[in-house]
C-alpha cells in the first residue's frame, strides 16, 4: 500500500516540477476549441448549439495527447520491473497511474472548461452540466486510455496507434456527456446522462485496471 502512495506522490511531484506535462494538454484544449469558431461559424447563436460537443471533443483529444507518455518512462527505466518484483498488485499500479493522469489532465480541463464555455457562448443553464459531465466523464477517459497506453508502451510511434485503438471506445462517454450539456442548454433534465456517465465510471474503475495490468505484464515479458 505504501508503494501505491509513494508512486502517487512521485508522479504528482514529477508533474508539478515539469509543468509541460499538464500545461501542454490544456493549451491544446484551448486551441482546438478556438479553431471551431474560426473554421465553422463565429455566430454566437450557432456556437451556443455546438459548444458542448466542441468542448467535449477537444477534451477527448487533449486526453489522448497526454496519455502516450503515461507508462513509457516506467517501462524504459525499469520502474515497472521493480514494481512487479515488489509483489504489489499491478491492478493497484494501473489504478494509481490512471488517477494521476486524471489529476494532471482531466481535472485541470474540468476546471478550465467554464472559460471555454464563455468563449463559445455556452448557454447559461449548461455550465453546471458541462463541469459535472467533465468531472465524471474524464476519469473514464483516463481509465480506458490507460489500457491503450499500457498496450502501446513498448511500441515505437505508439501515440497514433493509441488514438486508433481508444477513440472508438470513447464514443459512449462522448455521447452521454455531450447530450447532457446539450439538454441542459435547452432547459431539460440531464441527470439521466450524468447517471450513465457515473455507471460507466464505476464499470471502468472495476474492469480497466485488469486489462492494463495484463498489458503491462506483456511489456515485461518481452
Amino acid at each position: 500500500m505504501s508503494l501505491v502512495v509513494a508512486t502517487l506522490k512521485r508522479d504528482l511531484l514529477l508533474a508539478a516540477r515539469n509543468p509541460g506535462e499538464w500545461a501542454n494538454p490544456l493549451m491544446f484544449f484551448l486551441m482546438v476549441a478556438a479553431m471551431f469558431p474560426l473554421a465553422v461559424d463565429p455566430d454566437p447563436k450557432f456556437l451556443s448549439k455546438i459548444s458542448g460537443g466542441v468542448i467535449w471533443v477537444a477534451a477527448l483529444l487533449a486526453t489522448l495527447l497526454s496519455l502516450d507518455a503515461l507508462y513509457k518512462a516506467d517501462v524504459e527505466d525499469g520502474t515497472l520491473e521493480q514494481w512487479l518484483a515488489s509483489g504489489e498488485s499491478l491492478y493497484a499500479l494501473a489504478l494509481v497511474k490512471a488517477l494521476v493522469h486524471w489529476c494532471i489532465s482531466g481535472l485541470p480541463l474540468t476546471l478550465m472548461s467554464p472559460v471555454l464555455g464563455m468563449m463559445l457562448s455556452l448557454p447559461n443553464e449548461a455550465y453546471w452540466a458541462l463541469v459535472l459531465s467533465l468531472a465524471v466523464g474524464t476519469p473514464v477517459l483516463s481509465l480506458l486510455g490507460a489500457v491503450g497506453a499500457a498496450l502501446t508502451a513498448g511500441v515505437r510511434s505508439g501515440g497514433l496507434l493509441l488514438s486508433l485503438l481508444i477513440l472508438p471506445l470513447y464514443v459512449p462517454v462522448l455521447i452521454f456527456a455531450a447530450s447532457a450539456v446539450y439538454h441542459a442548454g435547452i432547459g431539460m433534465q440531464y441527470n439521466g446522462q450524468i447517471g450513465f456517465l457515473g455507471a460507466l465510471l464505476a464499470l471502468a474503475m472495476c474492469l480497466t485496471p485488469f486489462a492494463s495490468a495484463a498489458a503491462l505484464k506483456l511489456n515485461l515479458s518481452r
Partner: protein
Amino acid sequence: MWQWIKTLYHRLGSPKWFYDITNRWIPWLVAFSAIGAAVGLVWGLAYAPADYQQGNSFRIIYIHVPAALISQSAYLMMAVAGAVFLIWRMKMAAWVARVIAPIGASFCLIALLTGAIWGQPTWGTWWVWDARLTSMLLLLFLFFGVMALQQAMETEEAGHKASAILALVGVVNIPIIKYSVEWWNTLHQPATLKLTEKPSMHPDMLIPLLIMIATTYVFFALLVILRTRNEILWHERKRSWVKQLLEN
C-alpha cells in the same frame, strides 16, 4: 457429452489434428456454401416477391443482413479465442483470433457498403448518422484497431497477447457502444427512417434470408478454417509432418 467436449477441446489445440480433420470437412463446407448460396440467392433475387414499399431494392438484404450478423459474431469469436489464448496459452486460439480479424472486418465493410447502396434508393442518401450505421462503423474501427496493434508489436507472441487484451476490452464495450449510439440517436433526432422495424416478413422473403444467413455462417467458417490452415503450415513449417506433407 462433457468428456467429448473436453477431448475435442484438447484435440483442437493440436495443429496437426486440426489440419487433418479439416481436410475432411472442407469439401462439405464448400458444397454447403455453394448450394446454399445458389438456392438462397436465386430464391431471394428472382422468386421472392418484391417489397410493397421498397420494390426490388430490398433484395440486397440477402447479402446485407448476413454480413452484418457475421461481422458481429466474428468480433465475439475473436474475443473468445483471445481469452482462450490468454488463459490456457493455446497457440491455435491465437492463430484463429488473428485470422478472424481481417475476415470480420471484410464482412463489416460489406455490410456498410451494401447498406449505403440500399440507403441510396430508399432513404435518398448514402449515409445517415443512424444508430445501426454508426455502431457498425465503430465496429469496423475496432477490427482495424486489433489488426493495427497486431502489426505494431515487435514479436508475434506480443502481438497475439496485445490484440487479445484489446479484443476483450472491446467486447465489453460493444454493447455499451451499441446502446449509447441507439439512445443518442433517439434523443437527438426523431426516428424518421426505421430500416429494421418492418412489418413481420412474409415467409417467401424470410426463408431465403434464413438460408443466406446459414450459408454465410458456413462460408465464414470455411474462410476461417482455410486461413487457419495457412497459419498452421507457416508456423509448423519446420516440423516433420509438414515437410512430409509438402514432399508428397
